[in-house]
């Protein structure tokens, strides 16, 4: 029981951390609070639907391709011309991109929600250390955990990662050392595309359907997690997302049913409180950098 709950909570935490990093990375590198993030998740999820009859590794690969392509196109068309705009203008622009992508999806491929039958093995249950654990929870945990490790390695050990973190902290200084905007910004969008594809795939498996508006909830989770963790550092953001996920799992098993419906209201009230009381985030010691 405890182990099952732990795997569920840690898995959800890892998923939320993944979603949060996608928001925090773009915010750090170019000051973009990206509301179109949800539609990148949608792109990945749609690929999972489109290739639902193919072997799942192939569908996952296509999800990544879809989300990355959509991420790069949105960068090129909308955010590239606004590179020097302030964060609020960028936020409005991402709002527009989000709506454009959503209506595009609605008028072409997803006029209504489609069911995606989950892979059969996901509905199995296995016994680990005497605990009965759902494979879906296990897969969520492993997939998101591995992704987090990959991101940690990429950001911490590679030259690109160092450049991205430097750009996130002080873009002008990084540029004056020769860090190229035309390299790091698209790279950030590619990473965000990959993250959202994985997130989308996991969400499809968990909810068993794909709809044009499915990106909203995970996008908001990313925003809340990033604000909680302090948007100035990716580590803080990831931790914020993780705690948010774990707390959600805890709330869902503890809150009385008639209050679960108001979970979001509690969550966003907490968000406002954090913004007012500790704008640099709960977990960050750094001074706030947002405008």
């Amino acid at each position, binding site marked *: 029981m405890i182990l099952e709950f732990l795997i569920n909570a840690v898995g959800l935490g890892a998923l939320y951390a993944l979603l949060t990093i996608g928001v925090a990375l773009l915010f750090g590198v170019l000051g973009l609070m990206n509301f179109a993030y949800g539609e990148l998740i949608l792109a990945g999820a749609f690929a999972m639907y489109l290739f639902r009859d193919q072997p799942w590794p192939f569908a996952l690969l296509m999800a990544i391709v879809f989300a990355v392509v959509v991420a790069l196109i949105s960068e090129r068309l909308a955010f590239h011309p606004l590179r020097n705009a302030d964060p609020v203008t960028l936020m409005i622009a991402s*709002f527009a991109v989000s*709506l*454009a992508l959503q209506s595009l999806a609605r008028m072409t491929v997803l006029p209504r929600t489609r069911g995606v039958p989950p892979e059969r093995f996901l509905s199995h249950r296995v016994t680990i250390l005497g605990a009965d654990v759902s494979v879906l929870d296990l897969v969520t945990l492993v997939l998101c955990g591995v992704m987090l490790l990959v991101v940690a390695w990429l950001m911490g050990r590679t030259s690109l990662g160092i450049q991205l973190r430097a750009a996130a902290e002080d873009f002008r200084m990084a540029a004056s050392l020769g860090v190229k905007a035309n390299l790091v910004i698209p790279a950030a969008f590619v990473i965000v595309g990959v993250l959202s594809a994985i997130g989308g795939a996991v969400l499809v498996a968990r909810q068993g359907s794909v709809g044009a508006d499915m990106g909203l909830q995970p996008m908001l989770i990313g925003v809340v997690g990033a604000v909680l963790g302090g948007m100035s550092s990716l580590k803080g953001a990831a931790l914020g997302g993780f705690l948010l996920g774990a707390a959600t799992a805890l709330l869902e098993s503890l809150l009385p049913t008639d209050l679960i419906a108001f979970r979001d209201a509690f969550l966003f009230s907490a968000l406002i409180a954090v913004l007012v009381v500790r704008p640099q985030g709960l977990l960050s010691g750094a001074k706030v950098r947002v*405008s």
Partner: protein
Amino acid sequence: MKSRNRILDTVQTPALLVGLVLLVALAGATGDVTTARVATLALVSVVFVVGLSVFSGNSGVMSFGHVMFMAAGAYTTAYLTIPVPLKKTLFADLPGWLSWLAEVHSSFPVALLAGGLVAAVVGLVTAPVVARLSGLQSGIATLAMLLITYNVLNSWTEVTRGSSSMIGIPRGTTTWWAFGVAAAAVVVAWLYRCSRGGLQLRASREDFWAAQASGIAVGRHRATAWVLSALVCGLAGALYAGYLTSFNVNGFFLTATFSFVVMIVLGGYLSLSGAVVGALAVSALQEVLRRFQDGRFTGGNELPAGVADLIVAAVLLVVLVKAPYGLMGVRELRLPRRRRGGGAERRSEAPAKEPVGAA
């Protein structure tokens, strides 16, 4: 002579704007049913965007949460004007402490006023947050307020009917009601703009810290503007409910928010004229696009749903890139001037570079 010029100077912009709104109302009152509907809803949008502009235009802080005030006005109107017998069946499960909601009843004008006041109370409750935050943080916080409102309205089924539509509101809003409120909103917004508080708030828009340092209580002025703008947006909500006679909680969420953001950004969010012009222009654009989508211009070939949204989003992006201050910039509608140099002098008011939310 000179003082008369000054009076003309301060009065001409609101007069022109009211005139513009009057033209729309006349078109609505004399046209067919569809025209009347489009014109009235455009006027409701004018009320809302003018309300939004009272806060955003003067403080330079963008809000994504104002639709919650509209919701407050609309729900208030519903509670007050739906006939009592119908209300008893619609809200059969009201919790005891709210059972009076099923009993109260009022005429539409009272409901309109109450809608504005309830929204102002919501504004009062949320004002401390807005007073303390700027820029992106304010944007996120106001959005969070909208999400909270939506969540509560959507989940508190016994009181708000949740995701079921609110129905049976008597048609109280006429085109002339909408015009009257729009004209009043324009005048109030202009008066606030020219008031001491409005002037000081606008000073803080250019340079928050300089204003703060020179003794302007930016937070307090922001809070004042926030509450006033909540009131106006609440009126818009009441008009909206009183016109459509039924509404759904989904009408007060992101799509509506986006639509109003498009209006104010396209018109130019720093100018009151921009708010009015933007609301009217985007309303017209949306109507044209809706007809396109229905296939009325393409010989009955319906375009897939979503085309209109897509085009509006594209228009907004182009405006953000090409003219971040919108159609009007910081200018206001004025009579053509005979004196030379007037235009240049006003243009120099424009903040040097950073557009939205630089504070």
